[in-house]
């Protein structure tokens, strides 16, 4: 019995720093990390933007471009969707190419989070993203998304009224690594 008690004590001692570590990022940066990060994020991820941005308290109902926040979701609840068309690349020449508009949709309770990009891209970009997505999410349970909050609106999706929160995303991260369409952000 005493052995059992000792084992339980040691187990609790081992678990407590871990538990406090998990909670500490959310507690320390409540306006930057909005959910449990499941051990994916580091302190550096929290302070990365602070050198050139001021923390703005998060208010879900407000349109607050500029200051990005982290949210983490089960991978199974997150889905990238791509809209394609023939067009001219805003960053390219005059030739028509396949274009894509990428959104990452994340389901959370009664809310749907819609992470969009600040521009449409040549389809190669979406192909690149798909590759990175597969690599980062394979056999992973959780993914964290970093984005600036935009409007919270009611939208009719497939005949159902849903509250949708929009975000302009910059980077995504799992335990396997990070990806961004901005050069040098994740490298």
């Amino acid at each position, binding site marked *: 019995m005493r052995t059992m008690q000792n084992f339980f004590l040691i187990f609790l001692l081992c678990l407590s720093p871990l538990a406090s570590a998990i909670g500490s990022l959310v507690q320390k940066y409540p306006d930057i990390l909005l959910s449990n990060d499941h051990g994916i994020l580091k302190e550096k991820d929290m302070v*990365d*933007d602070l*050198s*050139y*941005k*001021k*923390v*703005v308290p998060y208010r879900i109902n407000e*349109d*607050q*471009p*500029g*200051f990005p926040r982290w949210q983490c979701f089960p991978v199974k609840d997150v889905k990238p969707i791509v*809209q394609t*068309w*023939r*067009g*001219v*690349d*805003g*960053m*390219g*020449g*005059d030739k028509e190419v396949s*274009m894509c*508009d990428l*959104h990452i949709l994340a389901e959370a309770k009664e809310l749907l989070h*819609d992470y*969009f*990009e*600040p*521009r*449409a*891209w*040549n389809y*190669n*970009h979406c192909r*690149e993203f798909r590759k990175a997505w597969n690599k980062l999410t394979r056999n992973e349970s959780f993914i964290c998304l970093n984005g*600036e909050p*935009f*409007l919270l609106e009611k939208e009719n999706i497939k005949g159902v009224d849903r509250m949708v929160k*929009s975000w*302009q995303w910059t980077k995504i991260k799992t335990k396997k690594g990070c990806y*961004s*369409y*901005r*050069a*040098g*952000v994740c*490298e």
Partner: protein
Amino acid sequence: MAKQKLKTEHSGPKNGGGHWGTRKEGKRLSSKARRSQGRKESKSTEKLTGESVERPKVHPWRMCSEGRHWVRTHSMTVEPSEKHPDGKTIRHGHCADNPNRGKGKKAKTVRDYIETNEMNEIAKDQFGSLKGPPAPAPKEWPYKSSDLYDDLIRGWTKYWNDIFHPSYPLDPNLVKALIASESGFNPKPNDQSTKSSGKARGLIQLTDQTIRILGDVNGELKDHYVKMSRDDAYDPNLSVAAGTRWLFYKKEWASNKLGREASWDEAIAAYKGYLPGIISGKNPNPTGMQNIRKHYQELK
């Protein structure tokens, strides 16, 4: 009389330039005269295209006349001599001829070509005294350095407006809003050494492809080339200079597409790749335009 006959035998240069001697000697001397005249003409052309010339500049802020661009002081290798025993010397800042557009007989020197050195000189010498928009950022904006690049925005917007003379000049506030939406006024990411192509860089988030087209004298642009490297995109001054130039190119493209002069909002939509979707109605209100429109409204 025989001498007179000899005189008329030579039909060399007219207007008193003829040679009174044998035909052979006359030809030799006349060729020499032509070469000398050619050198004189070449010198006068050089004078015409040199720094102290009457040929107009593309813009009063430019350091060289049309057809030439500024090259900063640099070291160069020369034939070793008493003066330069190590075979190295310093070539002071000077104007050099612009590259040619086209090849072979169709090759033509481009009118306007600007490199990074000159863009830096212009910003240093000209932008400090300018006044006017963009407006200071609202207090609610979360960016710490949102007004730091106002002089660059003001300067380059004026420069390109002067060059292109659009019916509705580009508003510096729109450029400021574009920077806010693209990079959040952060010109430098954590790691600038990344070689990943296809990704966006710097204040205005230019891509490698954009940078290549801007400087390619045989590419899509017809004039007003901007030559810079991929790493230059991290430099705030060069990013604003090139990004604003690109915006004018996209406005021109959008105007051709629409069959009328495009608005600046449409130019931004073209810059962000959304214009075809907006025109066709497939994507009339893209979410990617929300950010810049909101920032722009708040600045106006």
